[in-house]
């Protein structure tokens, strides 16, 4: 069973003297939970995700997290000189997995994101949605309990987004990973998440549970009410 991710009064500043982009942030993420962070640009969402990923360290406070995570980036962040298969296998190889395991996991996760037929293609030969699928396969192949996603669908058209939402929910159901995702779209957050964290000026303003049964239908009234609740939470002044 994966361990929870716990933020305890975490603060983060990139500058000296400190100018905090994340203030007094406390949150406990349960194993196998799908958590979505929403907020305006520059509110500190990405910094929170980077701290879980180990890219940034908290300036103050305690953060309990696994050493080993997978991450999907806003830009696909693929290596253009490697094929689809090599990009995925590369991430697995860097975890020092044995060659046979690298091979097996690469094939398994490429099949999971429906890209097994594109294994020999280079990223530039793929569409934006396909490249993002490679990014998802690469994040899964490291076999971590936690999957982080930094606005992974923001550059994709709505049809592709709907398709990928469905796939990510299937992957989540199949792998039972803890997923932390950043989104600018309230509808996306309600479609996917168990809980939505609303960030305002680096502070966790509110946590909204989404109790609707899956698959969630954006045309139904309870869905619209959840979206409205997030929108209202973002308009509430910061607790500072």
């Amino acid at each position, binding site marked *: 069973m994966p361990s929870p991710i716990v933020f305890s009064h975490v603060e983060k500043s990139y500058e000296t003297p400190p100018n905090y982009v994340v203030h007094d942030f406390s949150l406990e993420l349960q194993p196998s939970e799908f958590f979505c962070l929403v907020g305006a640009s520059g509110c500190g969402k990405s910094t929170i995700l980077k701290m879980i990923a180990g890219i940034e360290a908290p300036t103050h406070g305690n953060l309990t997290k696994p050493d080993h995570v997978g991450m999907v980036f806003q830009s696909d962040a693929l290596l253009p000189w490697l094929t689809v298969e090599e990009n995925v296998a590369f991430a697995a190889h860097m975890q020092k997995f044995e060659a046979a395991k*690298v091979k097996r996991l690469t094939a398994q996760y490429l099949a999971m994101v429906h890209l097994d037929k594109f294994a020999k293609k280079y990223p530039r030969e793929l569409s934006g949605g396909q490249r993002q699928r490679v990014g998802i396969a690469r994040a899964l192949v490291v076999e971590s309990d936690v999957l982080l996603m930094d606005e992974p669908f923001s550059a994709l058209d709505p049809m592709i987004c709907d398709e990928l939402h469905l796939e990510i929910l299937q992957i989540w159901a199949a792998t039972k990973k803890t997923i932390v995702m950043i989104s600018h779209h309230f509808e996306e957050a309600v479609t996917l998440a168990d809980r939505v964290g609303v960030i305002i000026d680096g502070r966790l303003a509110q946590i909204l549970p989404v109790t609707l049964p899956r698959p969630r239908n954006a045309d139904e009234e309870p869905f619209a009410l959840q979206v409205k609740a997030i929108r209202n939470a973002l308009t509430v002044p910061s607790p500072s």
Partner: protein
Amino acid sequence: MMVSKGLLAARPGFGVPSYMASGFQVRRYLRRPHLLYETTIAHHLAAIGIVLAACGAVVILGLHFANPKDAFNIQDVSPMDVATAAANTFFRMFLAYLIALVASVPLAIVIARTPRTQKILLPIADILQSIPVLAFFPVVVVFFTASHALELAAVFVIFISMLWNIVFTVIGGLQTIPDDIRSAAIVFKVTGLRRFWYITLPAIVPFVITGSLLAWAQGWTVVIVAEVLHTYIPHGTPSQDLLGLGSLLVDSNASSKTSVFVATLAAMILMVALINLFVWQPLLRFSQRFRFD
């Protein structure tokens, strides 16, 4: 695709992997399973050819520098002399380029490593590259003449002229690596030397190639002066010049040997065109696959 099983399979530890035996036509190459190179017999033959050619070039270079045949009489220059001069000039530039390449990439990486190193080292590099290389050529020539290493005087000056072109282009290239790639490297534990080998080095390939192209262009300009050593040696005579296209151009012009001048110029233009056609154009096309945009 036909897959070679012979060359590596014959080496200890490089047997045919199990997934190949099951008909999967991709093989491991040199124990790097994350890079599943498909290799054919043609690839292996080409690799052997390149290695042999490189070894041959090193031997010829070594022999040449051990026994330089630089003495020439501008009044009696044969077509063979022009061909020898072209080969000599090419070797000098190639050697200078190799040294510049090996020195410039680590230098650029050190300079661009952090904002702090950039702040300190970039202005220093900028000042150094602004110093005209020919300004201190007389000192270089005197130093190398004392060591009886005139070839190295020319190579050194060409090296200096090439160095900064590659350094500054690579620094620019390092800054184009997207932040998400740097973050991905941390998340996927690609750090230290592995990050240098698997991410930094491939990412700067287009910039190394562009910088190299500029370096050779600069080298062609400097080589014309670098081979005419006698003008920099106190009481020097043309017999001290290095046989090369540069010295032939200058000396034939000074001696009004128009036919030699035209033949040398034609040889130089031909060599520049051939290098551009068969080296730089393919390399520039090849480098496109390493671009992030």
